[in-house]
Structures are given as C-alpha cells and as structure tokens.
C-alpha cells in the first residue's frame, strides 16, 4: 500500500484544521503517517490516531526550533527514509515551502507548492499566474513533496481510530551545522480572528478606509471573518504588513471576500481573485474591482459597512 507522510511542526495543544486536512489527503493516497516536531500532547496524539495516522515519528532532538528550516528538513528526510513514504505533505506556509524545498534537494524529489487538490495517482492541482490558470502537475520522482493550501479538502476521519506506533527518528548529527540560528522571538498580539489564509470570510480595506479600520473590524467580527488589507493600506502604516492581501502579501481564496475602499489594481487582484464570492464597496464607479465583483456597491464605505454590520447583528439576534 502506498504511504504518505504528513509533517506537522509544533502541533501545540490542539491540532489545526489544516493539519487534519493534510491527514485526510494522506489517507486518500494510502497509509498515513505523521512526522511531528515539538511537544506532543496526549489528546493531540489521540486525535492523530482518530484521523488515521498509523505511525507518529518524533525527532531525537528538541532543539530544531532554535534554527531556521534546515535541520527540520534533515529530520524530515530521515523520517521519509524510515517510513518509505512516496508522498510528503506539508503546510503551504513560508516555513513549509522552504522545508519542502530543501527536502526536495536531499531526496532528489519533485516539489509542488500551492497545491489545492491531490488525485489518487499523485497528480496535484494548483492555480498559477495569480489565479489566471489552473494546472495539474506531477512529480517525476520516486518521492513527491507537496505543500497544500488550507481549505483544499473537507476533513474526514476514518470509521475506526488507529493506535499509532511511536517511532523516534535520529536527527543527523550535522543537521544544525551551518544552519541559521533563531536568537530572538517576539510574539505578536493575537487578534482572536481566524488566520487570514484559512478564513472562510475575509473583510479587506484599502486606501479608502483612510486610516480607520474600525468599521471593517466590526464587520469582520460580525461575520466571524478575518481582516485583510491592500498594499496601499499597509504601506500607509494603517495596519500591519501581515494583513496584506496581494501579490507581495498573502493569497486568499475564501468563500466570501468583502473589499472596501480598494481600487482592485492587479497587485491586489492577484491575491484574491480565486475567492468564491467577491463583494466590493467603493466610491469610485470606475474602480477595476467592480469588473470582478459578484455584488458591487458604489457608495461610501463609512455608511454602507456600519449599516451592514448592524443588519447582520440584528439578523443573528
């Protein structure tokens, strides 16, 4: 039976939905195993078993987080060798893609990023050139390394939970040699909103918010969505760069994208045009965003957005 290995970096106290999505894809390809790094809580281990993980690989060292990417790739390469996996699945984050990149060189394995679906034969689906093409790609090598975007599949658990076997992988002694070291870490304040790239709903603001994201935050909270911004808004310093949606920021593909005060230049469109439903609010009827909006409102966002927020609160009671 084909084997697929999912890498989960620091699963924490509860598994993320994206990790369960990777496990769901792994099981669709064959026998699923997990290689994790960091602490493993008992209930997380149980959840991995409930989602079909047959083996849990852990590294022999606890200092992988002290270094950037490289030693994690060395550990994962050793785990792939131990597991005999033909497919390795990682999150499509900056770290995930770079671990995949180095793993690809170590194993002489083809790497495909930004994957949104995987067929049983290993064919990966993705969209390229800012969503203007959908492509299928395949690794031509014995092992395929795929980084998968969140919300690509619905999480499914097998009927019967497995009790995964625990295996410790010896991290090669030279894994940390010549690796960049992480010498400081500043935690960023948590917003309490869903992560931008994983959110089902995104409310984004641009130049038109003129420094005041308050009304958009309230709408995002009423909808249970994430907050986003155009480059104009982040460059103006009104909101952190982490919130930027677009070519040089994050690419999102939510069920609903509400764009307020954003003209919709190509740089912004590149990050959001694969959203399922796009709503645009802009004062300027000539804004290019209206060319791709399913529902467009020519109007003042400071009037339209609070009115919508109030109506949503009323309906949700």
């Amino acid at each position, binding site marked *: 039976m084909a084997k697929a290995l999912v890498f989960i970096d620091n699963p924490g106290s509860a598994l993320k939905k994206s990790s369960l999505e990777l496990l769901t894809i792994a099981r669709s390809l064959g026998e699923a195993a997990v290689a994790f790094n960091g602490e493993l809580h008992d209930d997380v281990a149980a959840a991995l078993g409930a989602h079909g993980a047959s083996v849990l690989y852990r590294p022999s060292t606890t200092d992988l987080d002290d270094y950037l990417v490289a030693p994690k790739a060395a550990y994962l390469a050793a785990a792939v060798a131990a597991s005999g996996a033909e497919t390795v699945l990682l999150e499509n984050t900056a770290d995930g893609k770079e671990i995949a990149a180095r793993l690809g060189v170590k194993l002489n394995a083809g790497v495909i990023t930004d994957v949104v679906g995987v067929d049983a034969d290993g064919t990966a689906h993705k969209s390229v050139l800012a969503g203007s093409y959908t492509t299928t790609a395949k690794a031509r090598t014995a092992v395929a390394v795929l980084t998968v975007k969140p919300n690509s599949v619905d999480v499914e658990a097998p009927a019967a939970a497995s009790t995964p076997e625990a295996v410790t992988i010896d991290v090669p002694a030279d894994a940390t040699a010549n690796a960049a070291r*992480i010498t400081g870490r500043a935690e960023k304040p948590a917003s309490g909103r869903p992560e931008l790239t994983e959110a089902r709903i995104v409310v984004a603001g641009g130049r038109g918010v003129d420094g005041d994201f308050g009304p958009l935050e309230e709408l995002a909270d009423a909808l249970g969505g994430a907050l986003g911004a155009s480059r104009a808004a982040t460059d103006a310093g009104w909101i952190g760069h982490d919130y930027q949606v677009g070519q040089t920021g994050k690419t999102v593909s939510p069920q609903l994208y509400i764009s307020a005060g954003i003209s919709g230049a190509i740089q912004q469109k590149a990050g959001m045009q694969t959203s399922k439903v796009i709503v645009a609010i802009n004062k300027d*009827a000539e804004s290019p965003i209206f060319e791709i909006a399913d529902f467009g409102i020519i109007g003042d966002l400071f009037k339209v957005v609070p009115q*919508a927020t109030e109506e949503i609160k009323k309906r949700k009671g």
Partner: protein
Amino acid sequence: MKIVVLVKHVPDAQFDRHLTGPGNTTDRDESILSELDEYALEAALQLSEARGGAKAGNEVIALSMGPAGAVNAIKKSLQIGASSGAHLSDDALAGSDAAATSLALAAAIRYLGADAPVDLVLTGMASTDGETSLVPAQIAERLGLPQVTFASSLEVNGERVVARRDGDAHADTVEATLPALVSVTDQINEPRYPNFKGILAAKKKKITPLTLADIGVDAAQVGAAGSLTAVETAEARPPRSAGTIITDEGDAGIKLVEFLAAQKLL
C-alpha cells in the same frame, strides 16, 4: 564584500500573462526585472555602499538565468547600480523547474566565486511569475550555505548576518555567519530608481555570458529533461464577470446583507 544578487526576467504582471507550448511554460514577452528582486538589489547596494562601494573593492554581481531577453533584467540591475552582470543562458535550460533552476544557479554562483569567494547571495522572496519561493532555499541547500530567508531587515557586522523574519504569530531574529544566502521581503527597503548617471554608467559595465559548459552542468540535469516535476495540463481560468452593481441610496448595507443571506454566507 562580494555579493551575488539573483535577478529574474518575468512577465509584467500589469498585463495578462500566459502559459504556452507543450511544457506549459511561461510566455516571456513583455517581461521586466521582477519587482521583488529590486529589494534584493537595493539591499546589496546598501551593504556595498556602507563599506565604501566599488572603490573599496566591493562587488555586486547581478546573475540571471534565462533566454536572450533576460539580459534586460541584468541591464536594468546595472543601471540601478550593480557593478557587473552574469547571464546564464542555454537552450537546454528551457522548462527548468525549481530543482533544475536551483542546480544551475548554484553551479553559476560557484563559478562566479572561483577567483574570489562570494560572501553573500541575495534574492527576492519569490519570483512574481512562478511564485514558489523554492529556489533560494534549494540554492542554500545545494551550496551548504546558512539560509536566512524572508528577511525584513538585514545587518552584516563583520562575518555576522542578523536579520528579522516576520511570521504571522511572531517575529524572529535570525543569525548566521558569512558566507550565507539571504532572501528579502518587500518590507526591507525602498528600492531606488536608475538615474541618468546610472543609465550612462551601465553601458560600460561588463555582462559575462555563461553557458552550461562554462559552469560544468550537464544538459540532462536541467531543462524539462532534468526537472523533477512536470506541468501536465494548463487551463486558462474563465475571466470573472461583473455581477450586480448598485449605487447606494441609503440602504446599500441592508441590500448587501440580503445578498449574503441569499448566497447562504451569513
């Protein structure tokens, strides 16, 4: 200090971009220097200038791999301020994926370091066409260099590289020793534009043409033949069409919620 900056000639994202041919490769008409590479070049120029620039023996080499047209990305880099260029071009490179690209570029960097070692390889955070972000990490892996990627600030003190890397939940300080590979984000600086003096000076700067034979890479290791992945099908996504557009007459917020309710998005 000897710095190699990787620059890529990419289709201008202001226009429609296309995949073409049997390998579904990118159509490179209307191409420009990748916007994200300008930040890497600016970072290199700042490091060089802080050490006395070219007069003090500092070098900033713009390296590009690509067909004949890619020389334009190098020329632009020279106008902006790079001291020399190197253009790796060979028909056998066509259709290279990240693995093949990183293999060829790593060999080219080794070649450029043959006379005097390269201290720093600088790249952008991604290309604006392929957008995989794989190549910098793969070059670091192939050259055995410490990898300091997605840097939003960069300092080099003696042999020590210190960078800030912003994640969603935290910002890290990352340290490594030279030689190293650093990829930078668009938050690191404000790239300069070429001025008239720079454009004139660029005409006298040298661009070294490189072939696979020069860098000791076999044709079978690169291009479509040496790539570890293949794009099997490509379909243009139908353009989004505009939906209902209304002008606010005092109740657009309510109409918006009615639309969301009808779409079952509430």
